[in-house]
């Protein structure tokens, strides 16, 4: 692909609804994940809870940040909730995004023990929302602008860069995860089954395991591996994009139902998948339904 074709592809207009869904869903899924930490902010961030001591450069501790006073811990927790909700609602969007990214990034580094994929991803994904015109539609900022100037045209598209980042992020994430699985045990051992037998196991997982025959787990494992390793191809080709969307959503649904706390990761990835690869004609139809629903 030449530089000019790449530039045109990156800049190609995208429906504004894609970015609006990302702005709504990413902070909500992150807050959902963090909720069990936020309600115990003192144990999470202050000396009330257990904290790994300064290990002076240990590879598992990328940066030592000492615990903060109890009051400050609760302040950070409240600020995370407020900035996340404001970002999701599109209120003071840029400020909220900057604050949310900064605070979630800080807390992720501050407690290595409570750092998981969702709160490692959230700061970067939120910074991407910050760079784009995330508050241009479907939020409080957009509503206030509309009240000030009712004659101003409503934006329906945006320059594609930010949405392209999220699309490339998904393909990278799936592909990298698939390669890591192939380099691990997924080609030779039954992996899915073994991970359903610890504290992540949900009631649904246990019921499903009791119903499905053993060979299904091999079929599901191969399906996941093929989907993830081939994701860049499946999402690049127009005729495989929608089937890949359905398979991806199905995979995240199963993860959410069967792996307990991983439900927030499943929601985050499922929402990004929907926002990035829902066919444009479906989005146009949905936007029209929303508009008609608002009409007197």
């Amino acid at each position: 692909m030449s530089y000019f074709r790449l530039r045109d592809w990156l800049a190609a207009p995208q429906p504004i609804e894609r970015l609006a869904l990302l702005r709504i869903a990413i902070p909500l899924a992150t807050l959902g994940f963090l909720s069990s930490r936020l309600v115990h902010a003192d144990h999470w961030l202050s000396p009330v809870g257990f904290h790994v001591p300064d290990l002076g450069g240990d590879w598992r501790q990328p940066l030592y940040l000492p615990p903060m006073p109890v009051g400050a811990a609760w302040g950070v927790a409240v600020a995370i909730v407020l900035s996340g909700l404001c970002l999701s609602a599109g209120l003071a969007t840029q400020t909220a995004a900057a604050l949310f990214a900064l605070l979630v990034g800080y807390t992720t580094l501050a407690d290595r023990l409570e750092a998981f994929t969702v709160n490692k991803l959230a700061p970067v994904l939120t910074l991407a929302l910050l760079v784009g015109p995330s508050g241009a539609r479907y939020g409080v900022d957009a509503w206030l602008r509309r009240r000030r100037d009712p004659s101003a045209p409503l934006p329906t598209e945006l320059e594609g860069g930010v949405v392209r980042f999220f699309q490339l992020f998904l393909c990278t994430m799936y592909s990298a995860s698939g390669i890591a699985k192939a380099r691990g045990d997924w080609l030779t051992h039954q992996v899915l089954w073994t991970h359903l037998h610890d504290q992540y196991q949900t009631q649904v997982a246990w019921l499903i395991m009791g119903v499905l025959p053993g060979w299904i787990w091999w079929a599901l494992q191969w399906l996941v591996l093929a989907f993830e390793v081939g994701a860049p191809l499946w999402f690049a080709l127009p005729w495989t994009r929608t089937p890949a969307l359905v398979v991806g959503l199905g995979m995240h649904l199963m993860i959410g139902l069967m792996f307990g706390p991983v439900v927030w990761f499943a929601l985050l990835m499922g929402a990004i998948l929907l926002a990035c690869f829902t066919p444009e004609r479906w989005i146009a139809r949905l936007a029209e339904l929303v508009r008609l629903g608002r009409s007197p």
Partner: protein
Amino acid sequence: MPRLVAIEGAAPWAPLWLRRTAGVAGAIYLLSIWLGAAGCGLPDQVLPRPLRFFTQVAELFPRAAPDAIEWRARGWRCDVGQFEEVDVRPFFPIRRDDKENQFDRAMFFYHHDRPVLEALDAYLVDAQNRARPDQRIGGVMLLSLRVPIPPLGEPGPREHWIATGEYPPSVTRKYWYSTASLARQDRCQAAP
């Protein structure tokens, strides 16, 4: 039926230089995720560790679990002079019933690291003696239980927390840390 609106672009608020810088940073971020998961050491060499940390996100369940691991603690009871299981879940209230709590995570990452295990020892003794003053302890043993995973297609009983003593002999125990006996005595003799 009226059309929605004329197609209109949302104006970016960020200046061009910032969007370009963000684009380059985004490309480095995605490349680092991919290379790291593919086993290339380049991101480790190039990125500062706090940044590298945020790119280590894609290696999700790559290996089969040979067993289900339960992390447990036994406390040295000052009154009876022996080790008994301590239910540590109330002392780690964040996701206390699954492996995302701080005790399980600390044991998972640091079961070979003496300084962390000593810090955990001090935290557990303090927490137990404050919460259950009638069951004071002077030290702990930290251990893992390896619970066999049933064969494919035979799910076994529903997973739930049970006391260490209720596990069958097929569940093996491995001890990773024990408070020195002198330290246990000193703590037990110290005023509550």
